[in-house]
């Protein structure tokens, strides 16, 4: 609970995604992870950093891209971020909710 209370208050949208991804901090990530009952391990951080790097490059993200990243496969991503792996990892990484193309 302490982590949540000490989380810096950053502007988010109505779904809890960070409005400005450059404001992101590691403490904030820990707090949001805790809300999803996730303890961030080294593997989690690796995924989060990769997501942020891709966001900075302007690449539209998908589960498949993360699966091809060489860091985790899709199955492992589900294990790291249960429920909605790309949505939850994106939220913790402070990047916008992935817009699945139609």
């Amino acid at each position, binding site marked *: 609970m302490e982590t949540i209370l000490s989380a810096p208050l950053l502007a988010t949208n109505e779904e809890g995604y960070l409005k400005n991804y450059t404001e992101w901090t590691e403490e904030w990530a820990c707090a949001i992870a805790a809300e999803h009952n996730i303890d961030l391990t080294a593997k989690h951080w690796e995924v989060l950093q990769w997501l942020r790097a891709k966001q900075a490059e302007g690449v539209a993200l998908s589960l498949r891209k993360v699966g091809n990243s060489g860091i985790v496969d899709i*199955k492992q991503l*589900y294990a790291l971020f249960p429920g909605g792996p790309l949505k939850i990892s994106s939220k913790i990484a402070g990047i916008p909710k992935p817009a699945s*193309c*139609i």
Partner: protein
Amino acid sequence: MKKILILGGGTAGTMMANKLRKNLPLTAWEIKVLDKDEIHYYQPGFLFIPFGIYQPEDVVRDKKDFFSKGIDFEIAEAAKIVGEENKILLKDGSAISYDILIIATGAQVVPEETPELKGELWYKDIFDFYTYEGSTKLAKKLENWEGGKLVINLAETIIKCPVAPLEFTFLADAYFTEKGMRDKVEITYVTPLSGAFTKPKATKMLSQLLAEKKVNVVPDFYLQRVDNERKVLVSYDDKEVPFDLLVSIPVNKGADVIANSHMGDEDGLNFVPTDKQSLQSQQFKNIFVIGDATNVPASKAGSVAHFEAEVLTDNILNYIKGLPFEEKFDGHSNCFIETGFGKAALIDFNYTTEPLPGKFPLAGIGPMELLKESRINHMGKLAFKWIYWHMLLTGKTLPVSTAMSMTGKEVEEEVLV
């Protein structure tokens, strides 16, 4: 003599060839189209074949009949694009050089991507309807099927005609109702998306329709494999959905030649990184990409290919003159959604505006209803076949503006919190 080479003579390639031929002198520019297959399929018709609404012969024509004079059409399969050397290599090892290349190689379904999808039950209890073979075989299956659990599943989110699986579901409900056996069929729609569709207002409308038609929806289901023995779909997070008859929309990928040329994007789905406004390839200045082959965040649909063709024709003409691109593709998409029992809905949107309710003005035909079922929309959907063969492919101007228009659309006042 300079040469424009168009790789793929499907919807987009045919339109581009005809449009460019009208605008470029025969004495200065050769236009060559290459396709591996002689038959032009009207793919939107694949939706209707399983239900006997269209017959197989309604959707096949000869590709060569759609090219205007002065276009050189050849049947051959490209094996590799060598952008650095402005040439492509054919399967037989010969090379064709170009000054400008247009990639229009489309998207294909690849059931082999999913373990056991194309296994023992393929074309017995598991079908696709995105191919001629799949849709015609499914028609035979449905004729004699006695009922049970019908599951419609999308293996991936990026698929061509993203509304087609929903349309199939609505038409299946109508088909079994009209056959007097709807009570014997349990219909379940299993999707990797969080709802029926990606955009909020359309998702709400379509979810209501699914509920009215008593279709179960299983969202956030990302297919890992099919268990043929137990007849269940298994997701990456080990959820299971049992089926008696599975109608699958397998993973869609760009053409193999894109993979062989290392020109696909990071998804590994062989779609070509393309500037979403100019439609120029991000890798080579003299390569342009159109239709289902691109990775632009717009629907993969014939209507989109048509709007893109209008923009790309102008851009290529400017490129030839050494002028900057003036036209920008806005992501305009216009799709009818068959909802069964002689009705359809219509959505019209672009990169930045989601499908909204309202009226869609159509010169000569009258207003269509947006995001709402109506009979006139259904007439529009059926008329699309005629328009496709006679106007779209030949490169005629359609009574719909290339850029999306807000005329008729109802915009809610934004609620300030």
